[in-house]
């Protein structure tokens, strides 16, 4: 040990944030080496919620793995399903009816709004403000009611099937979704007035938790985290999947690189998602919601493919290898939260505990998505 390191060693102490700590939203443990209130080193310790999803994908048939997808990133569960069915459809060469693709986009975007709303609430709780959470949950509840009416569940959705979706949407859903778009738009100024313009909130976010674009690229960060650092990377635009290429939407990008930029990206994304939902509802074609002749025991031909979707937290990718049998030979899941968390160790060095926890909150981590 060098003398410098020794000097640090004597002055510092280890602070365990987690596995049970109010700021970590789950069983994430961060081993902080602290010098007073300054962070010398932060080592995320993950795996408390590891359930071997990848291995499970290999020892059961493709269809039987579907319910697992809703249990990784459970806050935005539809995206996991979308990524998985997308990969398997590509492997098996299935063509999805257009109506089903539109329904996927509508439900996914609603799920994105719900996820971002939950993040806004949880982030404010991290910063010590409890009230916005309840307002976010109020709006989120409307979305969950809508999605429940077509998927049958409220959190761990298992709605998408290989070749389509399992239930068609009815008129009630379409009317409800239109109403929600209108009501959510009318609520946005309220969030702006009470959260975005709140002086303490701004002081706690502006200039705090700087993540440079280079760091973000280095660690493979995606989603609102990299878009808050000025990189316009969005899978929906870069590699359009489903029917996103037929819809008109912007990718919000902010160049401040701080917590506020990530907050603004997510708030703008809610607005953009509302636009997408509105357009998709207008363009929703008639027709079947399942492809014809999808075999019950799906045996995709030999080969491998990668399919990624823009989840609420970034790029969720599935790489599936098929050896021609009923089970995948290998299933690799790329979770956005894992990459986003890996930024934390380097970027939190030298920060104050308070600010580091704001940074941690702004990454929007869902721990089961990291642990898988």
């Amino acid at each position, binding site marked *: 040990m060098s003398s410098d390191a020794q000097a640090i060693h004597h002055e510092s*102490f280890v*602070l365990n944030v987690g596995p049970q*700590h*109010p*700021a970590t939203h789950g069983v994430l443990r961060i081993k902080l080496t602290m010098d*007073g*209130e300054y962070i010398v080193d932060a080592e995320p310790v993950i795996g408390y919620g590891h359930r071997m999803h990848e291995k499970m994908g290999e020892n059961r048939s493709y269809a039987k793995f579907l319910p697992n997808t809703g249990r990784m990133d459970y806050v935005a569960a539809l995206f996991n399903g979308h990524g998985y069915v997308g990969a398997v459809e590509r492997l098996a060469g299935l063509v999805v009816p257009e109506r089903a693709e539109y329904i996927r986009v509508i439900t996914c975007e609603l799920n994105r709004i719900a996820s971002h709303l939950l993040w806004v609430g949880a982030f*404010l*709780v*991290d*910063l*010590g*403000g*409890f*009230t916005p*959470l*309840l*307002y976010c949950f*109020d709006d989120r509840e409307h979305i969950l009611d809508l999605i429940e009416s077509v998927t049958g569940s409220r959190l761990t959705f298992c709605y998408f099937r290989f070749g389509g979706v399992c239930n068609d949407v009815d008129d009630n859903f379409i009317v409800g979704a239109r109403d929600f778009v209108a009501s959510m738009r009318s609520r946005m100024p309220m969030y702006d007035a009470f959260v975005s313009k*709140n002086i*303490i*909130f701004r*002081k*706690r976010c502006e200039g705090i938790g700087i993540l440079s674009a280079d760091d973000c690229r280095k660690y493979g960060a995606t989603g609102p985290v990299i878009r808050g650092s000025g990189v316009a990377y969005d899978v929906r635009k870069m590699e359009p999947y489903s029917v996103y290429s037929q819809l008109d939407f912007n990718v919000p990008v902010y160049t401040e690189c701080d917590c506020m930029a990530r907050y603004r990206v997510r708030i703008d994304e809610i607005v953009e998602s509302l636009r997408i939902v509105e357009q998709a509802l207008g363009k929703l074609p008639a027709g079947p919601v399942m492809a014809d002749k999808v075999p019950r025991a799906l045996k995709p031909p030999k080969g491998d493919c990668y399919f990624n979707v823009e989840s609420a937290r970034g790029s969720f990718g599935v790489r599936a290898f098929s050896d021609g049998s009923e089970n995948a030979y290998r299933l690799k899941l790329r979770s956005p939260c894992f990459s986003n968390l890996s930024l934390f160790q380097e970027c939190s060095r030298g920060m*104050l*505990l*308070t*600010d580091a*926890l704001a940074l941690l909150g702004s990454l929007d981590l869902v721990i089961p998505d990291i642990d898988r």
Partner: protein
Amino acid sequence: MTEGMVMNLVRLLLYLVGMIGFAAFNAAYLTLLERKQASWMQLRRGPTEVGPWGLLQPVADGVKLMSKQLLLPRDVDVPLFLLGPIMVVVPPILCLVTIPFSETLVARNFNLGLLMIFAFGAISTFVLMLAGLASANKFSSIAAARIVAQNIAYEIPLLVIVLSLVMSTHSFNLHTIVDQQAGGFWHWNLLRLGTNPLMPVAFLIYFICLLAESNRAPFDMVEAESELVAGVFTEYSGMGFGLFFIAEYVNIVVGCCLATILFLGGWHCPFGLLPGLHWFLIKMYALCVMVVWVRWSFPRTQFYGLLNLSWKILIPLALANLLLTAVMLKLF
């Protein structure tokens, strides 16, 4: 023993019981107020199950806290750890001794009442620090270190403001200070712009310091839930934990009482009619509602943000206020 002495003793005993009762009642029902008010702000209904409209909820909370085990973690400094909750609750109750609730209702009216309140107020935060250090928990220790800095930073502007007020009222006696504000709200110290045009600013500074001194959000560094788990209270359980909260609420009551006396005319009516205890209580509880309102509207400040606010804004403003008062007194 003369009859006068007996009467005096009975009077003191009655006041002692009365004050403890008042403190306990307020501590219990301010928690309910806090929960109800938070629920109104948050589209919820708050406690509704225990008693009509949840009115017996504080009783249920008290029974629950008392029935919980008092845990003693292995490494704690036992005497200090156990003394902490007791010592933290006594000073704010003692502060009530010198508060004049109405023309006649005051336990002990003595000339240095104002000074005594600040002396006991300082003990309260000091005990919080000791409790944090005695807990032998890293989160508690960090919180304890924060308390010291926070206490120093906010005691200064608070005292400077009170000093400028004492300069314009020429008295440390709370009763005298209220008496000077008789007759209509334009006589209140808050609007006594003749002696000090910055009086409303002084009130604002006092209010901010009150939040910080009683460790209320947005300045709740002592607890700082999402950072320090529960700050200095982390290792406390059962009624030990409960006593800290009683102390917090009694501190708020004392702070609001003092604000009412110093700035809002005490028991005097805003329109010069029917002065009495009810006006004092109305003003005091209105301030308590404000304190709760602030808590549920704002996120927590950063610790350095808290210190910056005090050293860079509040202290210079308070000193300017003091200087201005001195100049005005000299001139007029």
